[in-house]
Structures are given as structure tokens and as C-alpha cells.
């Protein structure tokens, strides 16, 4: 299936490239469209595309509409104060974006997280992965004109938001993963409630598959569209579901197991086709696998114990630097933190999956049809706010 499309897409890209060269001097034939930031199919993001008929021959991403200077802000606050504002770029996945920060700070400061704390941290990370991926899936659904697929995931997201609410006290921005562990222990009855929700949710996932992924029209629209070969995926350095859809079974949880992930038995979900459908389906498989991970986490979690290491006020470590990453909903999320020995970081660089994946956008859009733009763009698992930081 994919092989047939592959050649077609390559041809189209070749053709698109030629068209670009041919028409840059004489622009009359091309129509320039500014997609975003007020376009319903772009998010806080703009990309300029040029059309030759129905084919896109040029694409120039222009992010930065929600740039908040998180990295600069980090230099003014101490390690703990940084947490609430660092989760703003992805409020749906705030557990993960603070997770890798906590890991990095722990390494810099030299903190050992209690075992129960590690489990709870991994649990929030998985819950937030669900929340984020459901939100992403909802938007993917509406981008393809499937309004039911917008409503169902947004409603089922409530299951996990509810859990996170009872666990952390906040629906989306938890500020729960901190250097040294988590803020609080799990509430009473949390395990049973989570298992109940997961059981219901797994039933729903089957229905998603029936109404959305097995829909012939969706298959027609996404299969063989926006083909990203394994070589290109590696060359462009994409990450997360985009990479795994192209046949690279890379998952930070496996290749660099942080906290207790090496005790968890799970498979890295990946597909080989590398088309838009695979990129849409891999996060779905991830969600399924994440349910297993959550069950195991709840099973293996120690019954009692500390959840947070004691920190001195204004923790600081020796001068040094570190680069730690976790697998977030959008792929590897790394923090490069330089410390000069003071309680404030000297430099924080957040290497986010979105920013890395968007490099594939011009690569994929050039040569594809205008109607495939939303499916290619959103299947890249791109969160504009996170990319801008």
C-alpha cells in the first residue's frame, strides 16, 4: 500500500520542486496563502504557502506568535520558582514538561527521589500523556472534518483530568512534579478510581478505532499522504510519534529509562509506513500502551513511603551542566540546564518535540495537495505554544 504511494508522492515532490524553481521568477501563476495565525486550521502559528493549482509548491513556517521567553524567564527565578511558568507552554502535558526539568535539576543539585515519588511522577506523566493526546486527537478529528471525533476525545479527556484534579488539585496546570519528587501523596481510593476510568476508557478506544481510524474516508484521505521516509525522518531529526510512524522505534522511556520506567514492561509502538495515517495512529497506539503502563504503575507502586525528598530552601548544586529528557506526548522533551552554582539556573534551553517536528512541515507540504494540509500539519504532533516557548 505504502510502496505504491511512495513513488507517487516522490514524483509529486519532485514536480513541486521543479515548479518552485520554475516559477520563482514569474510569480503570476502561484497563489500565496497566509495560513494563520487567524486561520482555523493553524493554531497560534503561521505558515506561508504558495499554490500552483491545488498543489503546494512552497512552505515557510513562521512560529513565534506565542513566544514568551520561558528560557529568559528561567534565568531570573530559582529552580523551584521556575516550575509554574515552565509548564505554561503545554498546559495539557504539564506533567511531562516539568518532569524532565525536575530530572535535570535533581541531577544538578544531587537529589535522590523516593521510590513512591518516582511511581507517582510516572503516573502523572502517563495521565498527562493521555490528556494531551486526546486533545490532539480531537483537533485532528475536526481538522479532517470529523466532528464526532472532536467531541468524544474532548469529553473522555475529562476522565483523566478528573483523576489529575483529585491527585494534584488542578485540572491542567498541576505544578506537581518538582525536583525531589511530587508535591503530595495520592488521595484515598485513587487506585480504584483510576482502574475504573481506564477500564471504561479502553472500551471507548475501541469505539474511536471503529468510527475514526477504520473509516474508509479517513483512510482514503490519510494513507500515503505526506510520506516521511525513515531516512528523511532521521535526517530531519523529528521525534516522538512522527519518528515512530516512520519506522524508528525510538522512545526515550525505553532507550534512556528514567525513574522507574525500566521496571515497566511495555512495547514501543511504531509503524513503518510513515504516512499521515501512521502519524495519526501511533499516538493512538501510545494511548493504548499507556493504559497498560498505568496499570503496572498502580500495581507495582509501594504501598507507603515518602513521595518527596527533603530539599533545602533555595536548593543549589555545584556549577555544571546537564541535559535530561523524557518522552512527552510530542516526543523527546529535553532540558539543557547550565548552573553556575547559584540557586538560579544560568541558562535553560528547552528542546521540545514540536520545535523539532515542525522542520518536517515544509518537507512534507511541498508537493502535496492543499486539502492534505491539515492532516499533514496536525499529524506532525505540533503544539505551537510549546514550540515557541
Amino acid at each position, binding site marked *: 500500500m505504502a510502496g505504491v504511494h511512495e513513488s507517487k508522492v516522490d514524483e509529486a515532490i519532485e514536480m513541486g520542486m521543479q515548479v518552485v524553481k520554475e516559477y520563482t521568477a514569474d510569480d503570476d501563476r502561484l497563489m500565496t496563502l497566509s495560513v494563520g495565525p487567524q486561520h482555523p486550521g493553524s493554531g497560534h502559528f503561521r505558515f506561508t504557502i504558495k499554490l500552483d493549482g491545488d498543489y503546494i509548491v512552497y512552505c515557510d513556517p513562521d512560529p513565534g506568535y506565542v513566544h514568551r521567553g520561558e528560557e529568559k524567564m528561567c534565568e531570573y527565578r530559582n529552580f523551584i520558582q521556575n516550575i509554574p511558568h515552565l509548564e505554561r507552554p503545554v498546559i495539557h502535558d504539564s506533567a511531562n514538561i516539568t518532569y524532565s526539568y525536575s530530572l535535570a535539576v535533581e541531577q544538578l543539585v544531587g537529589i535522590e527521589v523516593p521510590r513512591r515519588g518516582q511511581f507517582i511522577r510516572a503516573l502523572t506523566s502517563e495521565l498527562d500523556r493521555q490528556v494531551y493526546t486526546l486533545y490532539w486527537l480531537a483537533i485532528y478529528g475536526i481538522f479532517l472534518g470529523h466532528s464526532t471525533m472532536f*467531541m468524544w476525545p474532548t*469529553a473522555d479527556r475529562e476522565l483523566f483530568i478528573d483523576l489529575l484534579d483529585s491527585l494534584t488539585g488542578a485540572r491542567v496546570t498541576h505544578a506537581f512534579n518538582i525536583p525531589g519528587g511530587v508535591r503530595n501523596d495520592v488521595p484515598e481510593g485513587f487506585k480504584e478510581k483510576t482502574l475504573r476510568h481506564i477500564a471504561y476508557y479502553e472500551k471507548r478506544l475501541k469505539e474511536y478505532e471503529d468510527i475514526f481510524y477504520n473509516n474508509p474516508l479517513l483512510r*482514503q484521505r490519510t494513507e500515503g499522504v505526506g510520506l516521511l521516509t525513515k531516512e528523511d525522518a532521521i535526517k530531519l531529526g523529528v521525534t516522538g510519534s512522527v519518528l515512530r510512524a516512520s519506522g524508528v522505534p525510538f522512545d526515550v522511556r525505553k532507550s534512556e529509562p528514567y525513574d522507574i520506567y525500566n521496571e515497566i514492561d511495555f512495547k514501543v509502538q511504531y509503524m513503518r509506513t510513515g504516512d499521515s495515517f501512521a502519524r495519526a495512529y501511533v499516538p493512538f497506539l501510545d494511548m493504548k500502551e499507556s493504559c497498560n503502563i498505568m496499570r503496572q504503575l498502580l500495581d507495582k507502586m509501594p504501598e507507603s513511603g515518602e513521595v518527596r525528598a527533603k530539599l533545602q530552601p533555595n536548593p543549589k548544586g555545584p556549577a555544571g551542566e546537564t541535559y535530561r529528557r523524557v518522552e512527552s506526548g510530542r516526543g523527546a522533551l529535553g532540558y539543557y540546564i547550565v548552573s553556575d552554582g547559584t540557586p538560579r539556573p544560568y541558562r535553560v534551553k528547552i528542546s521540545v518535540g514540536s520545535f523539532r517536528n515542525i522542520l518536517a512541515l515544509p518537507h512534507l507540504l511541498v508537493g502535496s495537495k492543499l*486539502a492534505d494540509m*491539515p492532516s499533514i500539519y496536525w499529524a506532525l504532533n505540533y503544539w505551537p505554544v510549546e514550540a515557541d516557548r
Partner: protein
Amino acid sequence: MASYPQEFRFGNFIASIIWLVFWVLLIVTLVALPLIFIILFYVPLPLANGEVLTPYLFLSMVVDPTRTLPILQFFMQTDLFKIAVFPGFTYAALIAAVTIFVERKFLAKMQLRIGPLYAGKIEGIFQLLADGLKLVSKEIIVPSGADKPIFWAAPIAFVATAAAVTALIPVAPGWVVADLDVGIVAVFAILGFFPLIALLFSWASNSKYPFIGGLRALHQLIAFEIPFILSALSAVLLAGTLNLSGIAEAQQPYWFVLFLPISAFVFYISSLAEVERVPFDLPEAESEIVAGWLTETSGMIYGLIQLGTYIKLYALSAIFVVLFLGGWSGPQIFPQELGPPGEKTPLEQMLTLEGIYNPGTANAIFWFTLKTFGVIMLMLLPRGISPRIRIDILLHTGWYKLIVLSFINIFIALALVYGGVFGPEGILTSG
């Protein structure tokens, strides 16, 4: 930003309303009424129940209930009533309004949500009213550089064209605005205007996204015109007439959907494409081209086009019913006359619609409306279960698959006609 004026007083507000009422009354009594009478002096007035229907008579008849019925009876026979009220515009608009409400609730139930809830006490039935008021009160923004006459005319033309289709639909025996001998051809002739209007409007908007949307609409509507006509043709072959009432009458015992299921399916798919509904809503695909050819619409211009779209939805569903579902035919469930038999007081006469009520017509209207709603629901259904189709797949479907499918059923229809099942003196030919 809307805000209260700085020195807002409720008393002033009331006073301003009273002033307004005063001036309206003054103008009506001093200017409007005399003007009406002057005009009426020159206009020949119709006869109602043997009397010349002067305004005085009209008013006196309204007071006496028994005398109202003849007026109603008289009006119901005029062409104006047919065009403006019953099988014409008001009926279609009413069905359109109900459709919008039903669509919202129906879709909400499919998507595990509640739908409109707050406007109106029961299940948000006034949501549409609220939306309409909002649209009316909004500013209409005309883009700079727009071709203004066309920009203004196109939405009106859109509604008018949609309403023109409804004029050809026989709702009950004799209840049709224009009972043409070439009814079905006229329907397609009128439907042929829609791509033109969409393209004109999108061009007049002087904007890129509407232009792409307009071109898409053009491609789509033209690609589906042919399977549309071909699928209707098989019904025409069986009925032996182009007249829509004739087609409806021809399927008295057996509906054509029994013999022409493929045609019915093709017609259904083509109707979806014709009304630009999911999965064929590419001319308005929001994630690709903002709102397609409606991008630059605002306020009531948008409202008019939406109204037109829903009237069109009703019209196409009704034509589906006429062509394949036996039109108004159905078991007689209405009584011979309303109310208990025997002598009636004037008020009872009024309530039981004596002289107006016709059991056959009421029955026909009931079944026709019911079937039409069934088809409308069927057309609403894909919105909950289907993603949007892509333009090349759409064109491929239209030109290659649907045309072939409709030809299959044309051959079946021809076989039925030549085999003596239908056609002149056929086994199943009614009448």
C-alpha cells in the same frame, strides 16, 4: 464594545419607548392608513364569499369567527398563498428551522453532548431564534475591493433560487405552486444556478480563500450534476412522465425505491454533495480554507446563505421523496372531519376548520412531511460519522463511480419498462 451610556436611567429608557410608540401611531394614522386607502381605491379588490373584500369587510370578518373561514378559504386558493405560505416559502423555511434544531440535538446526541440548552425553557428550542437575532443585529462587513452589487445580490439570489426549487414540489395532490409538465427538468435547471452563484459570490468577495472555495464548489456541483440527473432519470422512465405530481402518483402501490435502490443511493449521495454537507463540505472546509466561499460573509448575509442551504436541503429531500418514496402516499389516518359530528357552534366551526379541512390533503401533507423528515435525518447522519472527503477523491467518485452506478439502474428501469412491468399498460402501472 457595547456598553451602557454613561447616564443611563431606566425612566429615560421607558420614555424613549413611549415616544417611539407615539410617533409610530401618529405616522400610521396620519400617513400610512390614508395612503393604503388611496391605493386600494385604484386596485380592484377580490371577491370573497360573494362580497367584495374591502378592508372594512376584512376587519369585520376577522371579528366574527364564522366569517373568517371563507376568507381563509379564499386566500388558500390564491397563488400568493401557495407561493408565500403553503407549499412555498414559509413552509420550506419552517421545515428548515425545524431541521436546524433537530440537527443540533440529533448531532449532540450522537456526540454524547447535550446541544442547545439555555435559550427557551425546553431543550433550547429558541436557540435558532437567538442565533437569528444575533445575525440580524451584526454588522455586515463588505471587504474592500469587493464587487459590491454582486456581493449584495448573491445571498439573496441564493435564497431565491433555493426557494424556487420548492415551488416545483408537490406536497399533496394539487398543492404545488408550479405544476409543470417538465417538472424534474426544471428542478435541475434551477439547481444549475447554485455553482454560478457560489462562484460569483466568491469572485465578488475579492479574497483568496473564498475564491478557492468557489472553485471547489463549482467543481463539486458540476461533477455531481450528471449522476444526479441520471439517477432521477430512471424514476422518470418508470413513471413515464416528467411531471413531479405524475411521478408521485405513478408509484401509488409500490414505491420506486423498491425497483431503483441504486438510483436512490446515487441520488442521496449527489444530494449530499449538492447541499455541501459532510462529507462533501469541501467548499466550506474550515481547516483548509477557513470557511470556503463563505469566508467574507458576515451578519445576515451569512444568515441568508444558511437559510438558503437548509431550504435547499428540504427541497432535495422532498424531491427524493417524490421520486423514490411515493410522494404523499400513505395509509389514511386522518378522520373524515375534525371534531364530533353534528351541529356546531361558530367557535367550533372555526376550531374544526370547517370548509377548509380536507382529510385527503391533510393525510398527504402529513405523510409527505414525515417522509421528508426521514430523508432529512438521513442526510444529517453522515455529519456525525464521517470525515471530509478530498477534492480529487470526490471528483473521482462523481465522474467515475456514481455515473456508472446510475447507468446500472437506468438499464434495470428500461428492462422493467420493456418487460411490461411498468410503462403503458404495465402490470404495476397505477391508474
